[in-house]
């Protein structure tokens, strides 16, 4: 079991507020790791640090064992780290395929490519292939994303990241806005991506969902990792206890 992404003693302060106070994290190849914690535990900050959106004040991040400075989301992407943010980061006026290829546009062959002329048909074809193979119901490549349902928008954002992630995939509350069936689809997709060897990190509030989809669970509280569990060796009560501090954890529990 190879550690793909590891963070050690990450500190991040916003003025007087300490969002991350020496937080640690590990994600393994081919596994779904859930990162859970109460509101204000520092989950979102941690994800932003680990995906290159913001820089930590101190601490180390290692990718496949090598210490890495992510620098920017673009650099993180080049390293194979993709993130589905809670706000999805979609351009509402553009179509689903356009959104999938944002910043990674395909060009026509030959001289037209040198003029940076887009190969729109090929992008639509590949995006639709991805939407179909991932079992989503996004079918209209011409409609703007603004006209899609909440679940479809989510699918577009997830498919985009899944298509490009080859090392690490972060999903920040991917099912928060979804119905039961769509949630199942997303969780199935998450498993699917992990089977490809990607380290998937799922950030979620929903304990049953976490227990169902994750292989490992790491609990964040007050900016620190307070516990790690194997998903099949824990339960909702224990997780909630660790999250809220009701469970007395003097030392970090190791799986």
């Amino acid at each position: 079991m190879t550690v793909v992404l590891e963070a050690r003693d990450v500190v991040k302060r916003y003025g007087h507020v300490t969002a991350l106070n020496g937080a640690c994290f590990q994600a393994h190849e081919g596994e779904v790791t859930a990162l859970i914690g109460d509101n204000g535990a520092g989950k979102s900050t941690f994800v932003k640090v680990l995906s290159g959106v913001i820089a930590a004040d101190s601490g180390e991040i290692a990718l496949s064992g090598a210490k890495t400075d992510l620098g920017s989301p673009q650099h993180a992407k080049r390293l194979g780290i993709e993130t589905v943010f809670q706000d999805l980061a979609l351009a509402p006026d553009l179509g689903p395929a356009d959104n999938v290829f944002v910043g990674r546009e395909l060009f026509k062959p030959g001289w037209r490519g040198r003029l940076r002329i887009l190969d729109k048909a090929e992008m639509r074809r590949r995006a639709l292939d991805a939407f179909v193979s991932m079992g989503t119901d996004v079918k209209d490549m011409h409609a703007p994303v603004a006209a899609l349902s909440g679940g479809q928008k989510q699918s577009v954002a997830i498919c985009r990241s899944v298509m490009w992630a080859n090392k690490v995939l972060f999903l920040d509350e991917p099912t928060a806005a979804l119905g039961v069936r769509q949630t199942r689809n997303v969780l199935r997709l998450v498993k699917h991506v992990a089977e490809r060897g990607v380290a998937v990190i799922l950030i979620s509030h929903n304990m049953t969902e976490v227990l169902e989809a994750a292989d490992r669970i790491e609990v964040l509280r007050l900016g620190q990792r307070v516990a790690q569990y194997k998903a099949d060796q824990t339960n909702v009560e224990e997780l909630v206890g660790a999250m809220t501090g009701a469970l007395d954890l003097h030392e970090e529990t190791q799986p």
Partner: protein
Amino acid sequence: MNVPGGTTSAADRPEPASSAAQATSDLLTEDWRRTLTRTLNVSPTYMFGVLLSVFIAFTIINPSAFTSTGNLQNITETAAPYLVMAVAVTYLMIAGGLDLSVGSVLVFANVIAAKVMGAIGGNGTFPVLVGLLAGLGVGAGWGLFNGFCVTKLRVPALITTLGTLGAVLGAADLLTAGNDIRSVPLSLINFGTGTFLGLNYIVWIAIGVTLVFGLMLHLTQFGRHTYIVGSNIEAARRAGVNVDRHLFKLYALSGAAAGLAGFLALGQFASTTISGHSTDVIIVITGVVLGGTSLFGGYGWMIGTVIGILIPTTLNIGLVIANVQPFWQQVATGLILIAAVYLDQLKRRSRERT
């Protein structure tokens, strides 16, 4: 997996490759009816109807004068400099920006080009080319200044370009003490009055600019990034688009377009026209918005801008022919602008689902 067996197996069951591919290709080929519906439902189509109605109305009012070759040429010649500016402003507005200073930058470039050509002297091609470069250069320079204020100093585009609208015109007045420069190289005047296939050279330049930048907007990565920046600036940033640099380029483009328009105006009027461009910006923005480009970015077409610019220009010239007091032109253009923005809002509200 805790997922109930039935659901999983149904979803995971591999479909025969051929039927999946067939389904995909079915979804990719749009049938012509949907394409037609889509085309009929966009602003340029509506606005073409409006333009046609305006045309028909004036033709009925005064058929001999309005449809004369001279008048139709007059409409295209009047529209040409506006169109050059509107093409660049279309980019800017699709990217969520705005440029109110185009009319003032036009005047400034107008003055600088005239002064430069005057300083070189002579009536050949050389002073004209240098004058053109000077006009484009100072225009782009003011554009870069706008871009700097908007992207680096984070002053809203509305305020920045409102500021330069005043400042740049004032600077042009300072350079000339408010008096128009009436010496323009003969070669430029000849160019400004020359025609090809019945259309003025200046009109052909406007058509060329529109074609090149229209194709660039709709077919290239530069155009695509323009839409993304306007649609969701944060998404553009996260996708690795250098948003600030892109906006810089667009403001420079807008300034350079105004510079070109200022140079062309010298050829048209054989003189600088310092006081003649105070309402240019209203016509330019009205044209762009009428053509369907959203005031909020992310949405628009170049063909719409072409139609949009023709509406206020045709209206203005038609009103003159119909012997309406000229002040009504400004009233009409202003009201059309408000109506166009109202329509844009309605369209947005009906489109969004959440």
